[in-house]
């Protein structure tokens, strides 16, 4: 009888005490594979509702994509456009002081939550904190246009929120468990706040009526993607994170440890074209790979700080008068760097940006 009582006491004790960590999936760049890792938790985190300092997950939301045009900056009218959102209720078991997700949805949500919090911390450490934002899990999307695929992650600037679409049958592992991918998406949010100052909608409305601004906006999208790829690689230490996240047939041209060169046909912002129109990733890959090489030589911390500074300088310029040509972000980046680092950056940029180098080289003098 006493033995049974002791056993019961031990079992009861196993379920007590404060949780200090959660088990999630991530890609280990040093091992070249996905692994399970235990991540320490901040005391303020609500693990069941997955509510943290910079992100909170919601399920059951309905979003009419056709109404995104009605969005006001910083999610001001988000409540009117996103219906039915409610807290998620992730399920866990305890392994000592570590919470172990008890089902697949909980594992994916907890992994995405942890990676979004880590990405926000990465940018905050470099002087670019972002306010809290919601992340809609498997939302019901309606409207005449749609996102390209299931298992997509997206940041929607108009609503200032993330979308985490359900993984499809071929998404294995899902994108949401890949930290670098979430750093990439968080970079778009940092771009929105640091470059646009959190006021993009009014600018966009004005530019929509100006056809000549379209090419500049395309090039700016390309810069946005290139910067996001660089930050994701710098945060994760994995220059091939896109290939590692993409499964069986990865697009290796987005590897940052390759040396892509700017095609002269890409310089005016009308090419290259992809299935959905302008493809910002090709031009972005030239910037991302150049940044990766520069970071390798001057240090990613120094380059990240300079890049954030360049985004702010460019944003101030654009908000005064919108005119963007290829190389403007790079020009501001060079201005942000100290002399010795600038010389290194110029040496790395020159071969990749050969078609526009005569104009960009002025910033190297």
């Amino acid at each position, binding site marked *: 009888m006493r033995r049974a009582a002791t056993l019961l006491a031990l079992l009861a004790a196993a379920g007590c005490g404060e949780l200090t960590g959660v088990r999630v999936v991530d890609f280990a760049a040093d091992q070249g594979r996905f692994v399970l890792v235990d991540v320490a938790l901040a005391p303020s985190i609500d693990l069941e509702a997955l509510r943290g300092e910079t992100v909170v997950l919601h399920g059951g939301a309905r979003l009419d994509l056709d109404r995104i045009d009605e969005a006001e900056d910083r999610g001001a009218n988000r409540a009117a456009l996103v219906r039915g959102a409610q807290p998620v209720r992730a399920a866990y078991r305890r392994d000592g002081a570590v919470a172990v*997700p008890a089902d*697949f949805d909980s594992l994916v949500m907890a992994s995405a939550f942890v990676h979004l919090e880590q990405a926000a911390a990465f940018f905050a450490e470099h002087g670019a904190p972002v306010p809290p934002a919601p992340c809609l899990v498997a939302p019901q999307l309606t409207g005449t246009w749609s996102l390209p695929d299931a298992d997509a992650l997206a940041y929607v600037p108009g609503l200032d929120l993330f979308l985490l679409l359900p993984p499809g049958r071929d998404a294995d592992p899902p994108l949401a468990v890949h930290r670098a991918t979430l750093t990439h998406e968080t970079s778009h949010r940092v771009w929105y706040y640091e470059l646009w100052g959190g006021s993009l909608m009014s600018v966009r409305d004005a530019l929509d009526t100006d056809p000549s601004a379209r090419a500049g906006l395309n090039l700016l999208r390309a810069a946005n993607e290139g910067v996001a790829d660089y930050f994701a690689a710098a945060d994760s230490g994995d220059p091939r994170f896109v290939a590692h996240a993409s499964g069986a047939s990865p697009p290796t041209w987005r590897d940052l440890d390759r040396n892509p060169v700017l095609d002269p046909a890409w310089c005016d912002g009308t090419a290259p074209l992809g299935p959905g129109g302008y493809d910002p990733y090709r031009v972005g890959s030239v910037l991302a790979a150049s940044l990766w090489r520069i970071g390798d030589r001057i240090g990613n911390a120094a380059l990240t700080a300079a890049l954030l500074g360049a985004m702010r300088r460019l944003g101030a310029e654009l908000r005064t008068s919108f005119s963007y040509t290829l190389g403007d972000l790079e020009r501001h980046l060079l201005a942000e760097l100290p002399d010795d680092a600038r010389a290194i950056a110029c040496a790395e940029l020159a071969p990749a940006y050969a078609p526009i180098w005569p104009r960009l080289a002025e910033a190297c003098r």
Partner: protein
Amino acid sequence: MSHALLLCLLVPASGVELDTLATLGVSVRARSTGDGLEVAPAVALGLGARPAAALPLRLEVALLTDLHRGGGGDAVSVSAWQGELAVLAGLDWRALARERRALGLELLLGPALRVGYVGLHVYDQTESTWTAGASGVGAVGAYYRDGAWRLGARLWLGVARDRAFQAGLTVGRQL
């Protein structure tokens, strides 16, 4: 209490009725995403006792489990199982008892030992976790008894059981 229960279970004498009971049904729980419900097959097996025919009292030991699984794909998946061993006591009220037939209502409550397993799988890496903890279980049901047999329906409610409840049809036989 525990000695009394053992006596009731082991000594089917002096008016004590013993029976076995199986409940087959479904377990319903809220999806972790907060959107909708998940349903899975569920089973409960019990050994019950009515200490005295004149008393509307029932004691029962029950094992409950369901087939909720973790889910996932080939690369990342979760395997999970959870079960409970509950000791229940409560009301067993027989209305409309006629000869060997009766309609009954039961309301049972008691503590439970909850045991669970979670396996997280990422390619060839597996992290297994067994857990155990105290819980509580309640059951409410109705049955029709004809001689040694009883048929009925039951709703099981678990405390801290991932917000799940079980419901099903019961088949029992007096020993």
